[in-house]
């Protein structure tokens, strides 16, 4: 199975629009996976049907038993994440800040703190309205451990592709270069970078490529909004050449992206033949 992860570093380059369209272009040959669990958007375009919902537990959360707590303050002193505060005569765990490290529970002289399993979110397996398989997730409000949910979603999608004998996995990756992106790398055959011809786009591309080199992954690049600034486009092309990354397509700054989104359509439905051709070209390049 070939696993293609779409990344951008910077947000808003058109990564999700292009991923959604590639999923349609693949015509059932791919399981599409939304690994941007923090701000998942593919389901808006795919309108999944017959969803199976699975709960995802990950990490721990400290809970104080006030019947045994002597309010000695050791937990507050030892917490490195400022997650325990003294409020209204008692120590209180800030669930949002708690990293689940268990140090307070080990050091509490009264054994008044227990660690409970924390529900991080849900993941879903479904068919998109285009009838291809679709796996996505939703991180709970204010939850952490999105890296673990990213790994989980990808693992499940892979299992599904194997059972259903589907040759490709197309993964919409998270923005940035931190924990969720690093979680998406394991087992990746190819990274498709979607960048844009802006100073920020180029800056973030360089950081992303540093990470791709660190994982020794193969990559190719699509420059979106290439005509916003053609000097920057040439800089992106030179940078990619120096890093042996093929620039496989350039897409102009085109109102069809936001027009399609506003109508909840993928780029394949929005009807600009030039864009549809480009998406097909990108897919043909990726699948070989």
């Amino acid at each position, binding site marked *: 199975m070939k696993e293609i992860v779409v990344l*951008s570093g*910077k*947000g*808003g*380059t058109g990564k*999700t629009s292009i991923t959604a369209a590639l999923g349609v272009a693949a015509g059932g040959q791919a399981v599409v996976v939304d690994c941007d669990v*923090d*701000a998942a*958007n593919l389901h*808006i375009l795919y309108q999944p049907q017959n969803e199976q919902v699975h709960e995802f537990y990950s*990490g*721990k959360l400290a809970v104080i038993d006030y019947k045994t707590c002597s309010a000695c303050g050791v937990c507050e002193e*030892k917490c*490195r*994440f400022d997650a325990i505060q003294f409020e209204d005569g008692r120590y209180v765990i800030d669930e*949002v*800040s708690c*990293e*689940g*490290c*268990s*140090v307070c529970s*080990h*050091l509490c002289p009264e054994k008044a703190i227990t660690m409970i399993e924390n529900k991080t979110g849900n993941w879903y397996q479904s068919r998109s309205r285009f009838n291809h398989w679709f796996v996505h997730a939703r*991180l709970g*409000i*204010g*939850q*952490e451990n*999105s*890296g673990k949910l990213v790994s989980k979603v990808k693992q499940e999608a892979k299992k599904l592709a194997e059972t259903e004998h589907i040759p490709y996995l197309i993964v919409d990756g*998270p*923005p*940035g*270069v*931190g*924990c969720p*992106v*690093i979680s998406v790398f394991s087992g990746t055959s190819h990274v498709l970078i979607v960048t*844009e*011809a*802006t*100073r*920020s*786009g180029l*800056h*973030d591309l360089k*950081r992303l490529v*540093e*990470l791709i080199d*660190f994982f020794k992954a193969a990559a190719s690049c699509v420059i979106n*909004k290439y005509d*916003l*600034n053609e000097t*920057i486009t040439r800089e992106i092309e030179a940078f990619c050449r120096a890093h042996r990354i093929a620039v496989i397509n350039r897409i102009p*700054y085109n109102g069809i992206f*936001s027009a399609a*989104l*506003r109508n*909840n359509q993928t780029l394949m439905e929005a009807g600009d033949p030039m864009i549809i051709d480009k998406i097909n070209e990108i897919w043909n390049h990726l699948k070989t």
Partner: protein
Amino acid sequence: MIVAIASGKGGTGKTLLATNLAHIAGEQNNVRLFDLDVEEPNDHLFLKFENQSTEAVKNMIPLVDESLCTYCGICSQICEYHAIITLADQVMVFPELCHSCYGCLELCPENAISEGFKDIGTITKAANGKLSLVTGRLRISETATTALISRTQKVLPDSETLQIYDAPPGTSCPFIETAKRADFILLVAEPTPFGLHDMDLVVQTLRQMDKPMAVVVNKSEPGNTLIEDYCMEKNIAVLARIPLRDDIARTYATGDLIIDKIPGMRYLFVELLRRLINETETMRS
């Protein structure tokens, strides 16, 4: 006063808003802008200040003194992140998994563990007149985004100063770390179904954190009231609308401030700042 600029979805215009707003505010008063999008910091591309100083940021990792270690394995049993593994005659530390909780150091019965350090990134300080910029930059392959954000926030200005946070995208730990120290959140939203969906996630998160907020609509088009309708329903003030225009996109692409290049934008940001200060003062009283 600390104002965080946030969006949920990436690419809606957080950096555009943060840099132009900080510049306008810094023409009159002391302002410190914190670039807390430490995985992809971009504010410095628009505020090109010459006087810069950069320092490395380090986080604790366990340093095992094997002459004291009895290989009892307690450190490995208590580590929730599997960052320290005890073998028959060796202890292995995996710095990239360590959350610097100090649990192993606290609980080692032989006191064989002391503080070692790993680089998680850098903090760069730069200034020009009344405006200063503090940038956190995560080291590539490092995952301690939240720790670096928290360290960057602690580079406090000396005097009474408006502090502006350029927040990371999303709604999980990096965003929460940023928002929890802010007094007020300014959301930048774009009027698309993706923009609305992700903004709603941020609003739910902020309501849970009990944070006051207002909205700026970016890439606003006549007749498209997707964000305004949502804000009306949720009782959130809309403080400004930045239009969807090619010349704005091109100015941003080049790395320039739109208040300098695009007619009308200076006035828009002056007015936005005035309304923002009004909102925060109403909130205080």
